[in-house]
């Protein structure tokens, strides 16, 4: 839960219209508040970075109510209205903070003239080859040139020549000629990524972006510089020249790399994902995400995807597979090894399945080192979901030796494994041969190879669902591409198994229906509907689990200590 400090509102006047804005907000943000579609064009300003003020595109006229210097009294015009003392020069909106009574003109002659001037200047040395530029379609310079440019060039001199393909790091390629020296990438590396590696060399019009000697743009956030580059200078080595952006479909999703749950956008076309970019959510990831998180989608195209429902290695229909699984589970002695990577909906069904066949449930933890920014120590996206769902009541173990003992003693004779390679977690292959195996998972592994029943799962890009992140924020993701042919979402298969176990008739399950059941049965999700989960997510009540020793340490938007204190304070109040 975010602690909202109470911000004082003040009234300023933008283009003749009085509006209320929070005190101290800069004029670019104030104009956004002023009206839909109203914008002060800008390049170097970024809401999450420090103010540089170097592009000079966001010029506005600024005036303050006039006061007599001697007496301090308001100076009035003939109508008794306080006169506005307009500044003689235009000022940059990004570095101008709103103060009471301030007047702003965003479209006066002088403002238009200076914008047009800046646009002309930016274009004289810029390669005017949008048709072959990778940024075309999502280029601020292209957009503003259409709006504020003159349509022909007065520049008949030679353009500057700069390096065209500099490899700044293993993932970022720089076209220096396109660079407009806005310094967003420099500030990002320094202020957000915490690795000051970029800077300018040479002077004036020959200024060139480069890495410091002996360094490279190798930090795990380097691709964010590509996102925030307003022109086609910084490009993703992986994505550049693969696809024109206007052909791509954008789907909201959630990053599964860690319990941060960075909000993302999947860019796909005809069932193929081309790239993943961060989506702004000020409570979760601002506008950033890790490079490693962007590469996860490549696993969806790997050759070892599970593509068929099989029983004893023979392809079967979903109904047959579900029936066989249910029959097996009915025999008792079942243990479920669940996953904190499953969605909330899947976990709901796994829990129901475990309940109905009296299975014991264990989870294994996935812990890595965090970077204090947007990669947390907990490397699963939905551990909180498993807790809220009641799938588990305590944190997962490191391995499964307890379960191994139970298999050895013969207490367990059927194992349901969800997306884990248990041979690496204390249950040897020998031991596995003692039990019947049902495997749910996206990719083939040592378990799927020996499993009696295999149910292929869809990856996060291929299904609808939701995760609960480190701060107990429920966030939903949507299917961007279809999965392997013939593969249904896990909840469809699980519904068949669960219904069979309970001697019910399986219903045609949509995600809305699934959520009706979840909201009815799970107290933590009471009152929620699938459609009611907004793009920003829903903050859930963490109180029942607040004392669990979660592994996350402080990162960009989450401080476990402060989070706990805030919760305790709310509960007491």
């Amino acid at each position, binding site marked *: 839960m975010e602690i909202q400090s109470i911000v004082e509102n003040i009234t300023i006047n933008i283009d003749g219209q009085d509006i209320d804005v929070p005190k101290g907000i800069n004029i670019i943000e104030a104009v956004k508040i002023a009206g839909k579609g109203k914008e002060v064009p800008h390049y170097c300003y970024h809401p999450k970075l420090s103010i540089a*003020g*170097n592009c000079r595109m966001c*010029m506005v006229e600024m005036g303050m109510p006039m006061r007599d210097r001697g007496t301090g009294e308001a100076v009035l015009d003939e109508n008794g209205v306080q006169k506005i003392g307009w500044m003689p020069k235009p000022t940059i909106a990004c570095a101008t903070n709103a103060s009471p009574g301030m007047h702003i003109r965003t479209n006066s002659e002088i403002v238009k003239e200076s914008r047009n001037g800046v646009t002309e200047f930016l274009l004289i040395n810029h390669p005017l080859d949008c048709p072959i530029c990778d940024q075309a379609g999502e280029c601020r310079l292209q957009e503003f040139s259409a709006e504020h440019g003159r349509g022909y060039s*007065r*520049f008949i*001199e030679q353009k500057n020549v700069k390096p065209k393909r500099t490899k700044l790091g293993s993932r970022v390629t720089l076209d220096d000629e396109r660079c407009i020296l806005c310094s967003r990438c420099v500030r990002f590396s320094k202020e957000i990524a915490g690795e000051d590696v970029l800077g*300018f060399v040479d*002077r*004036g019009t020959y200024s060139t972006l480069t890495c410091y000697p002996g360094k490279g743009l190798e930090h795990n956030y380097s691709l964010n510089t590509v996102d925030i580059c307003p022109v086609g200078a910084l490009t993703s080595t992986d994505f550049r020249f693969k696809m024109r952006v206007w052909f791509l479909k954008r789907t909201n999703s959630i990053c599964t790399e860690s319990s941060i749950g960075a909000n993302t956008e999947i860019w796909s076309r005809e069932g193929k994902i081309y790239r993943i970019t961060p989506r702004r959510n000020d409570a979760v990831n601002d506008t950033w995400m890790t490079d490693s998180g962007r590469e996860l989608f490549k696993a969806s195209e790997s050759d070892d995807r599970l593509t068929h429902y099989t029983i004893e290695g023979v392809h079967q229909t979903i109904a047959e597979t579900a029936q066989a699984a249910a029959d097996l589970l009915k025999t008792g002695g079942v243990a479920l090894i669940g996953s904190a990577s499953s969605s909330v909906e899947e976990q709901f069904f796994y829990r129901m399945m475990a309940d109905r066949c009296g299975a014991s449930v264990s989870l294994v933890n996935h812990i890595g080192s965090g970077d204090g920014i947007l990669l947390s120590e907990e490397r699963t996206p939905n551990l909180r979901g498993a807790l809220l769902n009641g799938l588990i009541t305590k944190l997962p173990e490191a391995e499964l030796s307890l379960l191994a003992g139970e298999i050895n003693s013969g207490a367990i004779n059927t194992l349901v494994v969800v997306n884990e390679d248990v041979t690496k977690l204390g249950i040897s292959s020998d031991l596995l041969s003692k039990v019947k195996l049902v495997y749910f998972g996206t990719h083939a592994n040592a378990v799927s190879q020996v499993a009696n029943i295999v149910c292929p799962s869809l990856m996060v890009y291929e299904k609808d669902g939701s995760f609960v992140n480190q701060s107990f924020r429920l966030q939903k993701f949507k299917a961007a591409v279809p999965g392997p042919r013939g593969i249904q979402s896990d909840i469809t298969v699980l519904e068949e198994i669960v219904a069979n176990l309970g001697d019910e008739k399986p219903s045609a399950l949509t995600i809305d229906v699934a959520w009706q059941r979840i909201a009815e049965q799970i107290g933590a999700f009471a009152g929620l509907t699938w459609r009611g989960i907004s793009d920003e997510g829903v903050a859930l009540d963490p109180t029942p689990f607040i004392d669990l020793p979660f592994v996350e340490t402080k990162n960009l938007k989450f401080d476990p200590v402060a989070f706990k204190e805030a919760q305790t304070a709310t509960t007491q109040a």
Partner: protein
Amino acid sequence: MSTPQEHRLIFKHIDEPGYTNDIDCYLKHGGYEQLKKAVTMKPEDICADVLTSGVRGRGGAGFPAGMKWKFLDRKSGKPIYLVCNADESEPGTFKDRQIIHQDPHQLIEGMMCSAFAIQAKLAFIYIRGEFFQGYKILERAIEEAREKNLLGDNILGTSYSCDIIVHRGAGAYICGEETGLIESIEGNRANPRIKPPYFPAALGLYQCPTIVNNVETLCDVKHIIELGGQGFSEIGTPGNTGTRIWCVSGHVQKPGYYEFPCSAITLGELIYDICGGLKPGRKLKAVIPGGSSAKVLRADERFTGKLKDGTEFDWGIEDIPMDFDSLGLVGSMSGSGGVIVMDDSTDMVEALANINYFYAHESCGQCTPCREGVPWMRKVTQRMVDGEAREEDAQLLKDIADQIAGRTICAFGEAASWPVQSFIAKFNDEFVEKARTQAALRKEGKSTAEKTTLI
């Protein structure tokens, strides 16, 4: 009318035979007496004196130094820094260099008086990289002064301590801009800061309150203590107090530096009486009165308007009194005092090409209008002198300059566009004529470009 006499205040000992730049010579000539006097005064009284004296900044902008000191943020509790701007790089200016080379102790005394007045914790001299000799002289002078306890810990037995650090630049004009200079001292690229919020008096060096003054201004402080604020203000005219060192260069018989009280001479007297006039047979064509960024004055212009007190004036170029306000009234500025005289042999297009070359080379590249616009102007004027002038180039140059001035982070944008704006406004015919001549030559199949060498 008799030839006006120089009144040397700052340059009293410059070029004096037998005067050396060591501390013994300086002490023999009454040196450091003002510092001894200053430390017995209350710091706020010195500040008040500087305000009363009306001394205006000698670096270029002419902002009253006492006022600048008053803006210091003393409530923050952060240490205060004093920085001496010795990055004298405005083309046509060569006064600070003489002070540093020949009378460094005057600067040190002026600085220590100023540092005491604003209660600075530490003082810096930012000296341009090319002044290597000056750097060595200053380093030695500071050592000498430290030995005599004139700077360093507990100066002259008082509880006040302040040291001076000499920091060398690396050859960039932009380091003369005070916030660029501050960035450079901090070890960064000399990219000027945006104002607001980074006004040096509040958020200067290391985000602490900082005063940046020109070499000559700081020397003036020493004389203000000697003469008193009132006494100093009696030199010159109200609003234009003290003396100014005019660095005259160009087509005059005796170029050099000449110190006069403000308003004591006119531009005509300076050129014809002091500098021995133009070369034989030449006529005055134009004067840039305050360093290359000041707007040019044409020899046959009439300047009319109203003075501050309401009286009307009607001046020819020779009648302009040499002071801050008068040069401002005629549409130019006294700037850094670099008077560049051009006679009728000057090709104004080439002159402007030369100036543009300099500014394009020196633009720091931080903000768009200056980074892109100034080199564009350079390319245009370069092309014009290379024989490819077009008639519309004059208008184009003016448009570019108009798009730069007032739109940039620092005053460099103005510094680079004022010459272009004024050259085009006053010598438009020459720019158009250039194109026509070249077109005619081209028709005849002759070479259109004369052999010219720009700096």
